[in-house]
């Protein structure tokens, strides 16, 4: 059992009469890539800003590396690298000078600049003005700034925001590489669910300021059931067969049935039963719901109730 690097207890933040974050209890395990998911306006950025001490929580507490952030701000922040929303940079300086500005503020060695430039593959353009950089380069420069202080924890807010598919792949590769190569824990927020699904090991889902789900990615998948979709020639007879065997199903469209299943072998069993009953199966699909679907179920359920 690994220890938790970030824990928040009943974290709450109100803006005038709006409660942006409500009783949030986050647990980010050591060495994980924690995907923090939620639609726009769910409170992701507010949470991240509280984690970084940019705003104060109305209630509750943030503990990072086992230390309360409010009391030991400096020592905690010294071990965090962050990229909040759009990267912060000075357009009139070169990429290298930008890093130097931030390096001069702390005691980090000068050699770190070359290291991080190499890590984010900006060495070739380091002496160009940031004004002339592409979006992807700027984003990578932001990542370089986050990595400058050799952090143990990397907090990224929407790191792939506004990037084209190639840029997204690039950033994604970089993020997956970090925990393996440098032992960094990554906390990243996104509303691009497919994105997080591909790189995260742990997931937290937030909606309207409430935490809906938290745990390992596999736990999220097991919590939601898979489906077997079949297309048959005689719908009513097929329904009878399924009823007899005790399957749960929904009829979706002409001759199509979505059956709740637990594993891939269930699909074979259903197929066999249908065929033995003399029903022709035209089409059989085992569907594992994507995070997108899970997310919609989780969030829509809340909207209805």
């Amino acid at each position, binding site marked *: 059992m690994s220890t938790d690097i970030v824990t928040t207890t009943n974290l709450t933040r109100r803006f005038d009469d709006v409660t942006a974050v409500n009783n949030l209890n986050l647990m980010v395990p050591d060495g994980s890539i924690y995907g923090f998911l939620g639609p726009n306006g769910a409170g992701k950025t507010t949470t991240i*800003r509280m984690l970084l001490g940019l705003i104060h929580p109305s209630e509750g507490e943030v503990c990072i590396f086992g230390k309360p952030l409010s009391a030991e701000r400096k020592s905690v922040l010294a071990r965090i690298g*962050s990229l909040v929303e759009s990267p912060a940079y000075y357009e009139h300086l070169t990429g290298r000078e930008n890093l130097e500005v931030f390096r*001069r*503020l*702390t005691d980090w060695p000068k050699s770190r600049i070359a290291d991080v430039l190499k890590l984010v593959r900006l060495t070739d353009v380091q002496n160009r003005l940031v004004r002339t950089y592409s979006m992807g380069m700027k984003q990578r420069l932001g990542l370089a700034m986050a990595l400058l202080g050799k952090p143990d924890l990397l907090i990224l807010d929407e790191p792939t925001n506004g990037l084209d598919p190639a840029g997204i792949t690039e950033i994604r590769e970089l993020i997956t590489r970090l925990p393996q190569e440098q032992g960094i824990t990554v906390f990243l927020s996104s509303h691009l669910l497919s994105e997080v699904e591909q790189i995260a090991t742990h997931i937290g889902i937030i909606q309207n300021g409430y935490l809906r789900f938290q745990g390992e990615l596999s736990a999220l998948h097991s919590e939601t059931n898979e489906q077997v979709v079949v297309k048959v020639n005689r719908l009513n007879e097929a329904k009878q067969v399924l009823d007899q065997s005790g399957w749960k199903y929904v009829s979706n469209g002409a001759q199509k049935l979505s059956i709740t299943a637990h594993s891939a072998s269930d699909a074979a069993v259903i197929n066999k039963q249908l065929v033995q009953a003399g029903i022709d199966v035209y089409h059989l699909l085992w569907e594992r719901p994507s995070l997108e679907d899970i997310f919609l179920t989780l969030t829509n359920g809340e909207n209805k109730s």
Partner: protein
Amino acid sequence: MNQLIQAIRSEQLKQKRTLALRLAFIAPLAIIVLQFYLLYQNGLTYLEGDQSPWVYWTRQTLQFWALLMAPLFITLETALVAQLDHKQQCWKQLFVLPISRWAIYGAKIIASLAFLALSTLTLLAGILVGGSICPLKAGFGIQRFNSVGRCTKPARDCVYWLLPDYCSAFLDSPVLVQLCHSSWYRHRHDRSRYICYQFRFSQLLSVGLIRAGSEQLCQRSISAHAITAIRSGRRCHPSGWRMAVFTTGCIVTTQFHTRCRSLITNNKKGPDVRAL
């Protein structure tokens, strides 16, 4: 203290290739050029008797600077220094560094003060150079005077003569710098905004006091040198005129200040009040 030095060194690199840096030279030089043109073209009609053209030239330039250019310059300068970090929301990146916020703010104020010092030096150098070029035109008799005043009188007299001008031109400027800064960094959700208001009020008061003080000093120096004043045939500080220019200057500056504020806050990626 160590952090403050680090922040200043970082700020120093940040100001490379900025308008703020160029402006520190452009603003005083603009005054010098304009004043020099006026003096060179029409100076002879204003100079009466054996009034030192040095005193006239220096005073005119300093007054122009103190009443019109300095407030505008400081407003724009501090706005540019502040805007640098507002534009791409660099604050959030600065504030998550293990460094105290006061070091960052302090470095900003020191950067603005450094620009102010730079512009003051440029202005003084400009006065010296401009005054030295004047003798090219015959009739000024400027060559009969040294740079602190009339050579017939002790130099100390002339330093005393111009002291109030130097005071009113330069003394309140550092205070104005802080005044502007505290107004740029005020944010809606920041608890310190109330402190800032008090801060600004007390600073406004001190600016007023310094101005009033230098005015007093002028009056005193006028009475002390009444004979010189009469002989020069001009009142050095016609209060009515001065007040009118000062009021106009204030109105223009306030307007300018508001424009600069919107320059900082109204751009698309303006500072997020939630973040700061």
